[in-house]
């Protein structure tokens, strides 16, 4: 019989109506992976890409050498940040459903990644987030009102109405601008880190992308440059199993872990339980120590699960079983840290419920304040003529002319309800005459 090739098309383990199956996610028991010296050469660390660094065991106890041994007060702060992220996400999702904002993306189920890493890094370290890292802003103390105003594109929006919701930036907080083009920030973070090394600073950079976007050339450019110049940068792949409707197999996950990309580039790749706050914190500390000691970059794969839809425009019930989130073997990062704190005698169900209530009230109060600066449908609005600003450092003549054209058109428009609304024809005729 003639031999012929056959195209392999990856299939997720379960589709809607089928039983969730996460047997492909290989786990390593908590506390069993050795923690090597942060200066160890990459080729001695290849096991870290295959195993999974875990600290919290099934009973919520911290195990093994990656435990960062944080004080209970720090763990309570972490729990608060994660809870606030989740409550903020839920509120914003609801506001999108009410038509107050155009779009939203929740990070539900992935809160430990941003919160643990944000807390493990120094305030001067530069962060290049993706679109599901709102926890980084919360850790660094960005006010929720500012985040909400960005989502509202209102008069206090730091993007001045130019970006979709959640495409935040915060210069003073050392958090770079989020781009809707996936993976572009990955090699930029490496360039930033190269500059830090050229200038002889001790600041490092960190960047995040999803496992799906690791297929983009930018990921590979980032890895190559980071390896060649041994840039002080932490490169994170958040493997939440789903890129909109395509499961991680379409980014190559059937053949290797995502952390295993690292060794191919001469970069240590560490696979970590992304829903284990302590493990993510411990691994990030290790990578930061390595980067600050001229040990070069680290690739971290955070194994987690996207509990919600990709965005408010997505309906995951069309492509994956509804029960996947509850069947996810690594659980819920908030419940796990809560269980750990309760086990330490430093937390209780009552305190948790009280904190939830307090944060919900805080988020609602922030929304009220933010909406006062305008929403898509009501209240004050930015002057549309500002759209011509910041294209260049100084506005060139052609943009000055276009701005005048826009203003002339706006000037023809009478105030709403003045009874003098002219027809579109009359307005354009008047503008044509002026022009």
């Amino acid at each position, binding site marked *: 019989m003639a031999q012929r090739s056959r195209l392999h098309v990856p299939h997720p383990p379960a589709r809607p109506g089928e039983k969730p199956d996460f047997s492909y996610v290989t786990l390593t028991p908590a506390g069993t992976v050795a923690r090597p010296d942060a200066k160890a050469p990459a080729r001695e660390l290849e096991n870290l890409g295959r195993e999974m660094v875990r600290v919290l065991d099934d009973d919520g106890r911290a195990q093994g050498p990656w435990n960062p041994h944080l004080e209970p007060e720090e763990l309570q702060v972490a729990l608060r940040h994660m809870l606030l992220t989740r409550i903020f996400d839920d509120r914003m999702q609801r506001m999108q459903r009410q038509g107050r904002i155009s779009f939203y993306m929740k990070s539900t189920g992935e809160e430990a990644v941003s919160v643990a890493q944000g807390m493990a890094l120094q305030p001067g370290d*530069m962060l290049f987030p993706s679109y599901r890292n709102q926890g980084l802003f919360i850790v660094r103390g960005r006010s929720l009102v500012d985040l909400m105003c960005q989502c509202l594109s209102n008069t206090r929006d*730091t*993007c*001045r109405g*130019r*970006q979709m919701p959640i*495409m935040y*930036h915060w*210069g003073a907080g050392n958090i*770079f*601008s989020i*781009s809707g*083009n996936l993976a*572009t920030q*990955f*090699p*930029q*973070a*490496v*360039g*930033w*880190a*190269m*500059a*830090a090394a*050229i*200038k002889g600073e001790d600041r490092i*950079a960190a960047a995040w992308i999803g496992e799906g976007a690791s297929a983009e*050339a*930018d990921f*590979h*450019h*980032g890895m*190559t*440059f980071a390896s*060649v*110049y041994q840039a002080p940068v932490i490169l994170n792949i958040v493997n939440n199993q789903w890129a909109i409707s395509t499961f991680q197999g379409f980014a190559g996950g059937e053949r290797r872990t995502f952390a295993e990309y690292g060794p191919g580039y001469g970069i240590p790749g560490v696979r970590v339980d992304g829903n284990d706050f302590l493990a993510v914190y411990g691994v990030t500390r290790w990578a930061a120590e390595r980067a600050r000691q001229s040990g070069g970059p680290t690739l971290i794969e955070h194994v987690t699960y996207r509990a919600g839809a990709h965005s408010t425009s997505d309906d995951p019930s069309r492509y994956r079983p509804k029960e996947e989130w509850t069947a996810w073997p690594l659980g819920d990062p908030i419940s796990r840290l809560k269980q750990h704190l309760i086990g330490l005698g430093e937390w209780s169900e009552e305190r948790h419920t009280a904190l939830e209530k307090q944060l919900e009230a805080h988020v609602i109060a922030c929304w009220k304040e933010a909406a006062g600066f305008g929403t898509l449908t009501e209240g004050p609005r930015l002057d549309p003529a500002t759209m011509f*600003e*910041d*294209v*260049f*450092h*100084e506005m*060139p*003549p*052609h943009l000055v002319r276009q701005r005048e054209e826009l203003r002339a058109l706006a000037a023809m428009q009478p105030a709403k309800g003045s009874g003098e609304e002219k027809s579109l024809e009359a307005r354009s005729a008047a503008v044509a005459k002026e022009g």
Partner: protein
Amino acid sequence: MAHMNMVQALNSAMDIMMERDPRVVVLGEDVGYFGGVFRCTDGLQRKYGEQRVLDTPIAEGGIVAAAIGMGVNGLKPVAEIQFADYIYPAFDQIVSELARLRYRTAGEFSAPVTIRTPCGGGIRGGQTHSQSPEGVFTHVCGIKVVMPSNPYDAKGLLISSIEDEDPVVFFEPKRLYNGPFDGDPHKPAVPWSTHPKGAVPEGYYKVSLSKAEVVRPGKDVTILAYGTMVHVAEAAVRLAKVDAEIVDVRALAPLDTDTLCSSVCKTGRCVIVHEATRYSGFGAELAATVQEECFWHLEAPIARVTGWDTPYPHAFEWEYFPGPARIAAALTRVMEEK
């Protein structure tokens, strides 16, 4: 005043800026130890060290992305893309990131990156070493696009580009690196030392990124050209025996509409010349601008002389190249209109 070819002039611009400003770094394929395949960065690594003049992996997208990150972190990167034909892997980083960073962050972040890249044909480069993709970049909001036609402008424009707060894509017509080329490949090469614009000050000076220059005054017809085509147009004017005014557009985006249009309004006729392909080329923007601003002064339809709408063919480059004969024919045609 020294005599410099365009390579030396560009080298001098980078040398001066690296000397004056420790934030300036140079990166690109082969630019470091070797000094660049066209020698534009020759000696810079020896002088400023390998932390400031970086050889890079062959990954144009990575080069521009790294330059953006460096720019955000306070450096002033000058990135070389070895041939303009190789710039496309960096297109997303240029269009979606570099050009829009200031805008999307309302001025909180920006990256003052200069991207130098040799363009144009006439060097037996075939379809992957001859392209002129300037029109692809002039269509992008938020980047400046320039193309010098001589060593004096090249140095002054590059210094201005490096100092500019905005990103600049700096096209270098490689056929002009060693001498002014008038479009006749059979004539012996002429060095820049024979040309007035080959006289270049050794020190610091700037040429504006927003000004075109009238390089030949005339009264019959205006030729709008840039890069290599400025010199080819001069040869065509001699051939057609018309008193043409040649405007070196120089700054393609933003465009110096005033200089261009006051010339056309004066002469009443306009021929637009570029080496890039015609369809949706930069000449279309020039023609539309002239039509809008000078319509009542025009005595004849605006003519375009460009590369044909085909890839640049290796064996037929002189049939492809918009040489003096084609430009002269257009001048004659435009002059015949009453």
